[in-house]
């Protein structure tokens, strides 16, 4: 009841401020947007948690309902200001994921994880490509394309649709404090798929350029290599520096953590690195090479992560283009259902190939449904380079992301709850590898 009252007061205040604001007030809206989104989205998350739904979905729904496409309490300028935190959020989320990956613990399962991820992705790529090839005239994306061009664009669409969201997966694990075999397995698969996505997208874009008579960029492969390996190297070095800070100074850790993530984000932009990979590598180094003594980093993550997650998902919700879903809702729902079917069957096949027995691993497909920012970023590249049909791909992808942002977290949280892993970090649960792998 007090939470609902506070939420109502916050919404009423935001509405009233809009009425009394002088002309030109929209330029000074950043702090208000952050404050309102923090309080109101966090409350929405808490309310949804009481309904056994993920908090993340609460943040997203709040952003969507109050955003510029529906109630317009979070106006377009406010939504734009909220996006500022996106880079920082992705870096922090990936850093947390790195901290959760203890290589010593994961080593015995590494091969199984690779097999599961590889098989799932392979089946998804093949099945989605065949589906798109057959149903091409009805997808609404340049139906007149034939031959090599249709092949190339269908492959590109397959790459985008097959992608997962490491950000949402990691955020959900961090937010629900989940720990256990399912969390680790899902995390490994989405990170592996993200690496694969960058590689396959580069190759398919080269194929599209060649098919449409353009020149393939010779240096592009090199830049992809730089993006992957450079990001890991930079992240490892940054992680080592941060570990030294924790060891020798160890003061103001929450602020230092935010400053560290901001630096990695800014350096990533400047050096054309992938902040997600850099931060993941940094987290891996801190966790596996120089783990901090005491709880200072753990507490800093607890204090620092939640505000960033709340803003990140509220901003994502506010930017969900509901109108796109309304435009091609039928096609999007059909593609989404097919994608989920292929994820489910791919994961089942992967589990068998990896020799994983019954148990939490059977639910890994539920953690692979979400899609978010990385996919959207790649879609924007396609739309900018090929506006003739890229815009249709963008509309379809935006609709799919809207659907998967809402469905994915609900499914994954349900899986984590069924596996009994929610709150596992608080209880100091040490995942037991034996429960996941039945073969020697």
């Amino acid at each position: 009841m007090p939470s609902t009252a506070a939420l109502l007061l916050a919404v009423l205040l935001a509405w009233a401020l809009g009425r009394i604001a002088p002309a030109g007030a929209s330029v000074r809206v950043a702090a208000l947007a952050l404050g309102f989104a923090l309080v109101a989205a966090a409350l929405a998350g808490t309310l949804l948690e009481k309904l056994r739904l993920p908090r993340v979905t609460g943040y997203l729904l709040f952003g969507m309902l109050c955003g510029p496409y529906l109630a317009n309490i979070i106006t377009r300028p406010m939504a734009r200001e909220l996006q500022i935190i996106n880079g920082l959020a992705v870096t922090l989320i990936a850093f947390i994921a790195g901290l959760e990956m203890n290589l010593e613990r994961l080593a015995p399962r590494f091969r199984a994880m690779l097999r599961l991820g590889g098989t799932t992705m392979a089946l998804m790529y093949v099945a989605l490509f065949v589906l798109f090839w057959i149903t091409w005239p009805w997808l609404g994306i340049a139906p007149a394309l034939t031959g090599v061009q249709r092949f190339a664009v269908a492959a590109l669409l397959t790459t985008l649709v097959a992608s997962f969201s490491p950000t949402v997966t990691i955020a959900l694990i961090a937010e629900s404090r989940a720990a256990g075999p399912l969390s680790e397995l899902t995390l490994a698969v989405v990170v592996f798929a993200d690496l694969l996505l960058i590689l396959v997208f580069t190759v398919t874009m080269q194929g599209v350029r060649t098919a449409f008579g353009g020149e393939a960029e010779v240096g592009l492969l090199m830049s992809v290599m730089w993006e992957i390996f450079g990001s890991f190297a930079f992240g490892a070095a940054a992680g080592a520096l941060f570990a030294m800070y924790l060891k020798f100074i160890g003061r103001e850790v929450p602020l230092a953590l935010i400053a560290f993530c901001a630096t990695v984000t800014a350096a990533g932009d400047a050096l054309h690195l992938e902040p997600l990979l850099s931060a993941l590598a940094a987290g891996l180094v801190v966790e596996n090479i120089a783990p901090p003594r005491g709880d200072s980093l753990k507490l800093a993550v607890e204090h620092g992560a939640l505000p960033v997650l709340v803003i990140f998902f509220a901003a994502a919700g506010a930017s969900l283009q509901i109108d796109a879903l309304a435009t091609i809702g039928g096609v999007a729902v059909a593609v989404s259902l097919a994608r989920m079917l292929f994820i489910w069957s791919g994961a089942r096949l992967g589990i068998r190939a990896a020799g994983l027995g019954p148990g939490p691993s059977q639910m890994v497909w539920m953690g692979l449904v979400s899609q978010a920012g990385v996919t959207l970023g790649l879609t924007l590249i396609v739309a900018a380079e090929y506006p003739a049909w890229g815009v249709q791909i963008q509309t379809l992808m935006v609709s799919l992301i809207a659907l998967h942002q809402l469905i994915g977290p609900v499914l994954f949280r349900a899986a984590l709850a069924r596996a009994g892993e929610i709150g596992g970090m608080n209880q100091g649960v040490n995942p037991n590898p034996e429960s996941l792998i039945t073969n020697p």
Partner: protein
Amino acid sequence: MTWFALRTRAALGLAPTMVPVSLYVPLGFVLGPRVLNVLSYDVLAHLDGVVSVALATLGVFVGIALARQARTSGRLIAAASIESAMTIVVVTSAIVVLLLQWQVPISGEPGLIALVLGTAAAASSAGAAEAGVALSDRLALTVADLDDLVPILVGAIALSLAADGARSGLGIALAQTAGIGIVIGLIGWLLFERASGPGDRAVYVLGTLAMLGGAAAYVKYSPMLTGLVAGAVWRLAPSRADEIIGADLRKFHHPLLVLLLIDAGAQIGPYAEAIWLFAPFVVFRLTGKIVGGWAAARLAPELAADALGAYLFPPGVIGLAVALNFQQIEATSGAVIVSAVAAGAVAFELIATLAAQRPERTA
């Protein structure tokens, strides 16, 4: 020596209640757009929102402190308010006369500029001085702590006049500012104690502070006044809201104050008007503090006027905050005022240093 040691501790962040103006303001100037350009105009524009939150945070501190003392030290609050009001009157009237008589080519309303300078001059930094053992010293320190109420109120009035006094009327503007503070104070009161863990609490504390600063900045009102009202609500409401926010604020109020000082330093420019205003600001602030100290001692006889003066000379962060807040609304004349007040704050800290070292030498 003790004073120097305390200063060094503060500079290293080991004594978070003390923030040396003479260190961070020049540092901000060096980092600012006129020297190294690390804090470029673009970066400063992005920091604008954070500055509003920092201003609101200062207001929360003052609000909690005032509400805490209100029941037991009503007379000291009155004395402190009279002291700061006298300073405002002295500095404002003297500068407005000079501006009109000498016809200084400064953009903006002379009365408003003088009022902002007077308000910025009124605050004192109790944390910059070391408490003596005598009762009069401790009381003087309390007065220096409590004299921020009037500058925040008058600063809010100046801000409303600068933003557009005719928009809704001064009274309504102040009532709306207080109303925003009360509503956000209620939101915090409903949430702080019910947070399910430290992460949740951090979200609520950060969120309410950002709302306090952001809401006021959005409608061009005073973030310090919204913060003050919310702080008072948290203190007076039947809960532990003030303790919770106090504990959380302790973790990051020092960085916020440092940010304010660095931002003020970065805004300093070589304006002829600022150089012109600097000397009257310093001279009339000194006069105002002496007169104000005398008036406060008349109201509360347990205060020794000479001890009070020594504690009132160090500049307050609130003074710089008032100037920065005005600059957010009125960029051109605000930059001149921030430059004069920041330079004056450094000068006053040096004066306070000399005043603090003299007794040690005699001892």
